[in-house]
């Protein structure tokens, strides 16, 4: 398993602290499996609240191991910026996918699933399934 290519995960939030904390939480809950490449892309380049296309592109490149990259986002401009970058065609690694999932629960599901060596479709599906987990 050690040389297996794992799906990379990018967590895009308006806040650098939120992105970093959710990355830490998801990796902490992933347990002792293979270490999934996870990169936060939070806030703007100058540390403010917002979305940075440059930070997202850099994060995606840093987690790309050739098995695809799953991108999870929080609000409005994070979603729109990733969609716009995907439309550019060459701004994100090949096989990068915006995953429709709740940010925190989806991140945990994505990282745990990726740690098993699952492919991009399975990682995306697990993250999206987190929407079905009701809290009441």
């Amino acid at each position: 398993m050690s040389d297996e290519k794992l799906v990379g995960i990018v967590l895009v939030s308006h806040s650098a602290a939120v992105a970093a904390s959710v990355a830490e939480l998801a990796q902490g809950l992933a347990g002792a499996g293979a270490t999934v490449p996870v990169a936060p892309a939070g806030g703007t380049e100058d540390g403010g609240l917002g979305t940075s296309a440059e930070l997202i592109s850099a994060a995606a490149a840093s987690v790309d191991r050739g098995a695809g990259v799953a991108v999870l986002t929080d609000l409005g401009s994070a979603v729109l910026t990733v969609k716009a970058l995907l439309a550019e065609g060459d701004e994100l690694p090949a096989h990068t996918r915006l995953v429709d999932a709740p940010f925190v629960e989806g991140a945990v599901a994505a990282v745990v699933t990726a740690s098993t060596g699952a492919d991009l479709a399975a990682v995306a599906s697990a993250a999206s399934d987190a929407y079905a987990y009701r809290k009441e």
Partner: protein
Amino acid sequence: MLDADFFRRWMTATAASVAHEAERLTALDSPIGDADHGSNLHRGFTAVAAVLEKEAPDTPGAVLILAGRQLISTVGGASGPLYGTLLRRTGKALGDAAEVSEEQLTDALRAGVDAVMTLGGAAPGDKTMIDSLVPAVDALAESFTAARAAADEGALATTPLQARKGRASYLGERSIGHQDPGATSAALLIAALATAAEAPEATDV
């Protein structure tokens, strides 16, 4: 016919107008948004003006594609990908012709506005930039001046609407009574088109 110089003037005029109106856009964004629309767009269009001066693309399509790329990478808020998509998609629709007709621009801009509606999921009446862009494109078939007037009217007409997209939508009825900042900045973009058309054709001879 409209050449690359016309499109550079359009972008430069937009940058100047956004710089001039940045405080007003941010003030509009204060009661119903997160009070950064003016500063975000100012940063974006300043970058657009700078890159166009440096790289000087030689077709209308290339000018708009480069401008859109800059907006996506520098704005930091939702207006970046939305305006970026508008300009890039319009530029792509213009192809690589050295000059385009006003009719071709109208068709291309309509394709750009459609792409923005797809990206953001907004329709006319949702209190967004779409409310000034759609009437502007319709009026552009008549003239640049008519498009400017239609965009201004569209922006003003967002005041009584309840927002259904973006952060303002969480405010529900409290979004009513405020002119939408996105529709207002979109009207500046369209007004700059008319400004570009009025400018002297060549000042460097």
